[in-house]
C-alpha cells in the first residue's frame, strides 16, 4: 500500500493468498470478540457506577452460560485449527515435479545452488508460476529461511536437510530474511527472492554457471573420492548399487526400513555406520571433514540423478521392495 509504511505484506505466492484468507477470518472473529469485551466492560463500568447503584446484585453464576461460553469458543477454535492445519500440511508437502534448488545457510549469508550450476549469494532467481522446492541445510547454527511475501518460513538446521516449497504468482523482488537468531550479523543475513516471468528467467538461466550442473559436479566428486570403487553399478561391489536407490525404501542390517531421501544420503556419507544396508558390512569410511555442505549437496544431486529412466530430481514413489516391513521412517 504505502511503500514507506506497509500495513499488509505483498502477496506473491499461492501460499500467501491462502494464508491471507485465514488471517482475515481470524482478524474478524477475534476483533469482534475483543471489541465485544471492551464494550461490555466499559458499559458495565459506566452503567453500574457506584453512585448510580444502591447495592450490587449478588449473582453466583450460571452453568448454562459457562457451558455456552466454553463450547462456542471451542467450536470456533476448531475452525481455526483445521483451516490452519490444512494450510500447514499443504505447505509442508512439496508437489512431485517441483524444481529443486539447494540452499546452504551460514553465518551470515545464504548460498543458493541451482541444479543447472548457477550459484547465487543472498539472491534467488526463480520463475513465476512454477513449483519450486528448496532443500536447505546450515553449515553452522540454526537459521531460518523467511519470505514474508510468500508467508513462508522454515528453519534451516545443521546436520540435516529441511525443505520449503512455494509457487510464486507475481514477478517482483521480495525480501528474504533470516528468522532464527544466529549471532552477530543475524539482521544482516537478508537478501531477495527475484521472481521472473518465463522469458526473463530463461535469459537469466542462460547466463549460466560456468561449472556445469550440480549433478555433474557431484559426479566428478564421486569419482575423485573413489566412491565408485565400492558403489559399482552392478551387484559385485562391496557397497550397495546406487542406481535408482534415491527415494526408495532401504532395508537395513538391523531390520529397520528407511527411505533413501536427502538426509539418508548425507548421513551415509558422513556417518556410514549409523545405518548399514542389509547384506553389507560396515566397512565404508566416513567422509566427515573431507566434504563440505555444498559438496554434499552436489553428491546428493548426483545420486538423485541416478534414477535410471526417471528424469533427474524426482523423488521416486515406487512401492516397497519385497521382504521389507510395511512402514519406514523418513528423517
Amino acid at each position, binding site marked *: 500500500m504505502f511503500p514507506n509504511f506497509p500495513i499488509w505484506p505483498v502477496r506473491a505466492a499461492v501460499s500467501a493468498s491462502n494464508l491471507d484468507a485465514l488471517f482475515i477470518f481470524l482478524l474478524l472473529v477475534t476483533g469482534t470478540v475483543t471489541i465485544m469485551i471492551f464494550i461490555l466492560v466499559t458499559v458495565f463500568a459506566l452503567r453500574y457506577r457506584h453512585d448510580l447503584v444502591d447495592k450490587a446484585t449478588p449473582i453466583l453464576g450460571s452453568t448454562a452460560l459457562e457451558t455456552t461460553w466454553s463450547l462456542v469458543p471451542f467450536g470456533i477454535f476448531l475452525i481455526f485449527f483445521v483451516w490452519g492445519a490444512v494450510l500447514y500440511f499443504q505447505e509442508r508437502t512439496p508437489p512431485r515435479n517441483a524444481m529443486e534448488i539447494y540452499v546452504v545457510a551460514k553465518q551470515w549469508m545464504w548460498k543458493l545452488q541451482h541444479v543447472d550450476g548457477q550459484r547465487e549469494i543472498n539472491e534467488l532467481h526463480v520463475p513465476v508460476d512454477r513449483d519450486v522446492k528448496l532443500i536447505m541445510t546450515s553449515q553452522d547454527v540454526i537459521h531460518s529461511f523467511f519470505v514474508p511475501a510468500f508467508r513462508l518460513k522454515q528453519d534451516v538446521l545443521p546436520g540435516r536437510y529441511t525443505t520449503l516449497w512455494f509457487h510464486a504468482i507475481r514477478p517482483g523482488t521480495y525480501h528474504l530474511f533470516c528468522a532464527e537468531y544466529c549471532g552477530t550479523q543475524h539482521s544482516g543475513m537478508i537478501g531477495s527472492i527475484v521472481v521472473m516471468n518465463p522469458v526473463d528467467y530463461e535469459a537469466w538461466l542462460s547466463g549460466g554457471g560456468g561449472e556445469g550442473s550440480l549433478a555433474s559436479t557431484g559426479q566428478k566428486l564421486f569419482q575423485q573420492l573413489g566412491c565408485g570403487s565400492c558403489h559399482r553399478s552392478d551387484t559385485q561391489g562391496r557397497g550397495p548399487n546406487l542406481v535408482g536407490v534415491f527415494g526408495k525404501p532401504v532395508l537395513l542390517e*538391523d531390520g529397520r526400513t528407511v527411505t533413501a531421501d536427502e538426509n539418508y544420503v548425507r548421513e551415509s556419507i558422513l*556417518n556410514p*555406520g*549409523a545405518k*548399514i544396508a542389509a547384506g553389507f558390512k*560396515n566397512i565404508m569410511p566416513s567422509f566427515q571433514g573431507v566434504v563440505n555442505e555444498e559438496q554434499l549437496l552436489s553428491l546428493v544431486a548426483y545420486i538423485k540423478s541416478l534414477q535410471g529412466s526417471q528424469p533427474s530430481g524426482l523423488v521416486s514413489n515406487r512401492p516397497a521392495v519385497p521382504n521389507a516391513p510395511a512402514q519406514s521412517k523418513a528423517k
Partner: protein
Amino acid sequence: MSDSSEALATHELRHHFENMEQQSGASSMGMWVFLVTEIMFFGGMFMAYLAYRYEYFVAWQEGSQHMDFWIGTVNTAVLICSSLTMVLAVLAIQQGRRRLTSIMLSVTICFAIAFLVLKGIEYHGHWLAHEFPGSSFHFAGIDPRHVEMFFVLYFVMTGFHALHVLIGIGLVSTILYMNQRGHFSTDYHNPVENVGLYWHFVDLVWIYLYPLLYLIGHHHAG
C-alpha cells in the same frame, strides 16, 4: 521414657504450626513434593536417553556392551541393601531404639560410600578405555559418534545420580548426628522418615538407570 519423649517432641514444635501432627504432615508432604521435582529433573535426562535410543539404537546396544556389568550389578545390590538398612533405621527409631537407629544409619552410610567408591573405579576404567566423552574419546566399533553420545548420557545420568548419593550421605550423616545428640524418639522422628524417603528415591532412580544402561542389548561373551 514416654514423658521425656513427648517433651522432646513439644520442644521441636515450630511456632507457626498448631501442633506436631500438622508439622510432621507438612514436612513429609514437603519431602514428597521435593521428590517430584527430582523426578522431573531426572526425567529430562531419561527423555534425552529415550530419544537418542530410538534414533541410534545400534549405537546404544554397542555402548551398553561396554558397561562394566559386574560393578553395575554389585552396586545395584549395594544400594538396595542400603535402602533396607535405611528402612530398618526408621523402624528402629519408631520403636525408640536409638542405638539400633544409629547403627543402621551408619551401615547405610557405609553402603553409600561403597557405591561411590565402586562408581569411581568404574569411571576410572572407562577413562582408561578411552570411553570418556570429549577429546580423549576413541571407539573402534561401529557408529563411534553415537556411541560417544551413549557415554555422554551414561556419565551425565550416573554423575547426577552419584551427586545425589553424595548429598544423601550428607543428609543421613546429619540425621545420625542428631540421633546421637538425642533429638529423636518414638514421638518425634519425622526428619528420619523424610531422609529415608529421599534415600529410597535415590535408590529408585538407580533401579531405573541400571537396566537402561547395563542390561539392554547386553549379552555375555561365549
